[in-house]
């Protein structure tokens, strides 16, 4: 489905848009307050960008260092070239440990690789424990926002959903609904043989996985089950523990406007022989799935710096109107328009990079200063010129028209002729305001008038009466 079609249905849903806009506005307000508390904010962004760039530029070395330290501490590192690979690795670990029940905490990459569906086919249901993810799992939907996956559901929606699917009495009180989830999931945490989590960061120098959360479900997922599996994109590494200081200041404030989230877990290896609780096995699955290709591309490697804060989504007016599902994949909003084509090319709508006015609001809030509009322009160039992919037929036509246009603009005489022809055409089309332009310009007049053609262009006016002036 073209994004035009999916977005129209989203635009028709006034309720969804209202909710989404309320929520994103609140998040941005809170973000502004949290950022204002940090006078060195711009310096931190610069540092964060520099750290990420330097890490990615030597990623091979850091990956080896990371693997060495995880292994030293008793963990195991697995390498997955693509999503299917990663799923199979998880399945093998589950089989080797006779795993029947799995709990999961939030992991965007697990959605990217379709892990839940894969495991279900293998007879293992992975229960989502993040409250928002749990809600959408019960609903059978995909997350629509990086930070708040069930943002598109009102409390009444959730009340009805739980009443229907979980057979509890209807309530729309968020506290009661959360309490229900707590009780329901406690049992799962205690009974599961395997916990699967994502990771916000991986520290190369110590082999530490860092998980940032508010609910405590990631702590439970990574503490109670005897086997812990971490799914991590290779771009998540930072060189040292000290580097985390910058990111742990930027991420919570940018994402939810908190000075710090309720919990940050630093997990280094499985539990030590003398520790009383914690998983006996730790597996880290490092995932490529298109990231190495991005790394090789001088423009797209910038996009790999993303720390998944969600601020670009919250500030994007396009996202605010069309919602997360229009993006065709796990990643939505401005960064979704870049990660989608790179990591989920099969489901990412091909015109996604064009669905932006390049307003730049996203780049202003990005904690690692990714030039999102610049990267979108790059993807548009790729789409139009076929540098790395086939050019779609309608793009070929657009390019032909652009070529003709450029030809007309390339010299003043041709420009003059073209503008006369256009003025005549417009005059034929309307008196006092054009209400319908012909294809392919009809999109303009779908929702707005086109100006009535002026009598003469500015330069013809100048030529006639008003010549160069000197006073």
């Amino acid at each position, binding site marked *: 489905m073209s994004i035009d079609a999916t977005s129209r249905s989203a635009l028709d849903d006034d309720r969804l848009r209202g909710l989404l806009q309320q929520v994103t506005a609140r998040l941005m307000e809170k973000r502004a307050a949290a950022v204002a508390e940090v006078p060195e904010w711009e310096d931190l962004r610069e540092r964060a960008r520099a750290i990420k760039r330097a890490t990615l530029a030597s990623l091979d070395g850091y990956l080896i260092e990371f693997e060495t330290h995880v292994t030293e501490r008793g963990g195991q590192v697995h390498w997955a070239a693509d999503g299917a690979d990663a799923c199979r690795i998880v399945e093998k670990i589950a089989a080797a440990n006779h795993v029947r029940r799995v709990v999961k905490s939030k992991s965007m990459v697990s959605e990217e690789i379709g892990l839940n569906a894969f495991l279900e086919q293998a007879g293992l249901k992975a229960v989502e424990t993040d*409250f928002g993810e749990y809600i959408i799992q019960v609903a059978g939907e995909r997350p629509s926002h990086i930070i708040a996956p069930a943002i598109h559901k009102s409390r009444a929606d959730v009340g009805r959903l739980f009443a229907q699917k979980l057979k509890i009495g209807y309530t729309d009180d968020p506290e009661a609904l959360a309490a229900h989830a707590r009780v329901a999931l406690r049992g799962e945490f205690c009974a599961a043989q395997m916990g699967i989590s994502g990771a916000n960061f991986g520290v190369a120098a110590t082999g530490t996985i860092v998980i940032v959360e508010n*609910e405590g479900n990631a702590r*439970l997922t990574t503490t109670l089950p005897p086997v812990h599996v971490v799914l991590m994109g290779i771009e998540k590494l930072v060189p040292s*523990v000290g580097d985390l200081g910058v990111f742990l200041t930027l991420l919570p404030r940018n994402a939810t406007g908190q000075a710090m989230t309720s*919990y940050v877990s630093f997990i280094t290896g499985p539990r030590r022989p003398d520790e009383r609780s914690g998983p006996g096995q730790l597996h880290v699955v490092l995932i490529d799935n298109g990231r190495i290709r991005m790394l090789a591309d001088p423009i797209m490697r910038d996009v790999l710096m993303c720390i998944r804060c969600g601020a670009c989504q919250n500030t994007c007016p396009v996202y605010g109107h069309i919602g997360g599902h229009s993006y065709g994949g796990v990643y939505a909003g401005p960064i979704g328009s870049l990660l989608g084509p790179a990591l989920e090319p099969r489901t990412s709508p091909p015109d996604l990079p064009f669905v932006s006015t390049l307003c730049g609001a996203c780049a202003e809030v990005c904690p690692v200063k990714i030039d999102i509009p610049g990267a979108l322009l790059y993807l548009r160039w790729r789409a139009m010129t076929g540098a790395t992919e086939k050019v779609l037929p309608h793009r070929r036509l657009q390019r032909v028209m652009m070529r003709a246009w450029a030809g007309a603009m390339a010299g003043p005489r041709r420009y003059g002729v073209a503008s006369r022809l256009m003025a005549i055409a417009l005059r034929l089309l309307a008196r006092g305001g054009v209400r319908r332009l012909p294809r392919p310009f009809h999109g303009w007049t779908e929702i707005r008038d086109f100006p009535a053609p002026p009598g003469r262009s500015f330069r013809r006016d100048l030529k006639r009466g008003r010549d160069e002036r000197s006073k």
Partner: protein
Amino acid sequence: MIAGVRRAVSAWRENGPPPAAGPAPRVSPAALVDRFVARAEAAEAFVSIASGFAGALQRIADILFELDARQVIVSDDGWEPPWDVARLSDVIEECTMRPTSSLHDTSAATIAKFAYVGVTAAAYGIADTGTLVVCSGPAGGRIESLLPPVHIALLPLSRVVASVADVLAALERDRQFDRSSAVTFITGPSRTADIELILTIGVHGPKQLYVILVNDSPPPQLRGNDRHLHAARPGNGG
């Protein structure tokens, strides 16, 4: 895969980040504590200051009475002398009329079902964010601060540092990431805002967090907040 990464970055030269700004201006310990208290309370933790371990024990007793707690688990980790976890267990047993060891070696499922309060020591506090740092070790430090709905943490005043950067540096110096499989930053009780951004306290982690700052040295000059000292005085009924 490493080879693939190596090829991808082969022509890429990048300068590292600029050297970090000089050390932050020194903040007085009293100001650090004030900031910690303010930020921790803003994150919905209940914070009090106790004089010495004895004062802390009194405060714990007060809390347990307030909560009418019966089942308490204690992490035996991270208690540095002269803090004596045996004395802590005694006090708890008095309050709850149950031995703290009753849940000690049971399964997580049992603890999840029965334990009401978990008591742990904290290694550090971060003033800028009101955060506690709890480290796992041989005798616990993971589930005690996670499974029971109430978590009580004792933090020596002298261990409150200013910033996240400071605490990470301290943890690195302590080689804590080698020693503990899990180091956890805790800021207030657990929460979610997944439904319409409505803040709900207490989801999967604890619903209530009590932080008892223990003033082990000669009391620093604290500005304002006398009520904290007031509450910690023994015999004051909290």
